[in-house]
């Protein structure tokens, strides 16, 4: 076992990996970052995540933890002195876990669908994205953050939306989160991106925009696209 060393295998544009970096930074945990290539996976990544072969992977003291939501709770439970992401209350924890799942299972595929599809299929994805985002916005309960006055678990899990959605709107020339239709969620985008630790840990905007443009071209051209 390599002591208490923390290593994160990520990919610079990957939202699920970014949420782990935010979590580590918020807890002030020192870590080594290994940037994986989108197309060729390193032998170490395949060794640590043989089942899914994906980022993010957190390696702590030589032991790997995979799947971003699992990693987040691991970080919260291991470095548990301050800046807790989840509260102690079982009901609040269940509600937070529910919305994290909803966001990953419903919002993510719909938003990716807007980026990866064209024509009628894209229109359908847009509608699903707008509906699921509107529903997600209700979890804010009128607060500044999903965690209330402070950033919490759901802000970390949903944070990628605040950064990706405006860029996807530029790439596709479509509106996913209208300020008038979803004022709370729209305001949360700004609040989250302005938060000190988060502000310093965002992928470079122009680089990500260019990446999303070429990703859209690749996905549209892909034979598995329908």
């Amino acid at each position, binding site marked *: 076992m390599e002591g208490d060393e923390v290593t994160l295998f990520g990919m610079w544009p990957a939202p699920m990996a970014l949420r782990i970096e935010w979590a580590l930074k918020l807890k002030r945990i020192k870590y080594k970052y290994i940037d994986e290539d989108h197309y060729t996976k390193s032998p170490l990544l395949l060794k640590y995540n043989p089942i899914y072969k994906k980022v993010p992977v957190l390696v702590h003291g030589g032991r790997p933890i995979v799947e971003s939501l699992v990693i987040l709770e691991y970080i919260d*439970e291991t470095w548990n002195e301050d800046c807790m992401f989840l509260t102690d209350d079982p*009901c609040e924890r269940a509600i937070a876990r*529910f919305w994290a799942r909803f966001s990953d299972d419903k919002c993510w595929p719909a938003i990716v669908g807007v980026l990866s599809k064209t024509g009628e299929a894209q229109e359908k994805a847009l509608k699903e994205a707008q509906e699921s985002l509107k529903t997600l916005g209700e979890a804010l309960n009128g607060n500044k953050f999903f965690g209330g006055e402070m950033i919490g678990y759901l802000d970390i899990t949903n944070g990628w939306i605040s950064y990706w959605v405006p860029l996807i709107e530029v790439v596709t020339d479509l509106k996913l989160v209208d300020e008038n239709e979803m004022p709370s969620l729209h305001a949360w985008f700004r609040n989250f991106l302005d938060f000190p630790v988060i502000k310093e840990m965002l992928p470079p905007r122009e680089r990500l925009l260019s990446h999303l443009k070429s990703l859209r071209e690749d996905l549209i051209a892909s034979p598995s696209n329908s």
Partner: protein
Amino acid sequence: MAESVVLLGFWASPYALRVPIALAEKGVEFEYKEQDLSSKSTLLLQSNPIHKKVPVLIHNERPICESLIIVQYIDEVWTDGSSLMPKDPYQRANARFWADYIDKKVIGTSARIWKSKGEAKETAKKEFIECLKLLEGELGDKPYFGGDTFGFVDVAFSAYCCWFYSLEIEGNFKMEEECPKLMEWVKRCMERESVSKALPDQHKIYDYLGHLKKRLGLE
């Protein structure tokens, strides 16, 4: 305030069945309300307006949805006696990973066995057996996935045991031959009252599957 615990479930759902197992492990009394999924009750639609699915646990009138989230909730509320989740954060992460794997890979892959025909069915069967072997590897020589005690992953997977007979017939294979250690674990789980009382008879599930396939036009 007198505690009220109500479970909205469906007798054949491998997700819903996790909840009575977890509640029984904790010795929690509850009121069970069987749901008609073809004509959803007002209570179900009000308690789970987003997904409109079972299971829903309504504890002191507050609904909790999603089966694995419910099981963790049960573990965190009723803390007398043994925990379903381990204490150590790494072991907890491991448990969450495998429960999530069962949801993401195992149940969906196995459903493709009865939903498809010919080559697609064979592929699904092969993938399902690979999943089972992975789970068997994780179990190792331990009596349960939770180690010496019945835990979170055991709850998550034992609820599916009543479906294995149907999968064997549909896929024309024997789980005993493919993963004998896992089948020993199944027998161990079925010896627990929490599991044997919660699960329906496997032949009833097979009959139900027949009706379901007809309804879906898969016969």
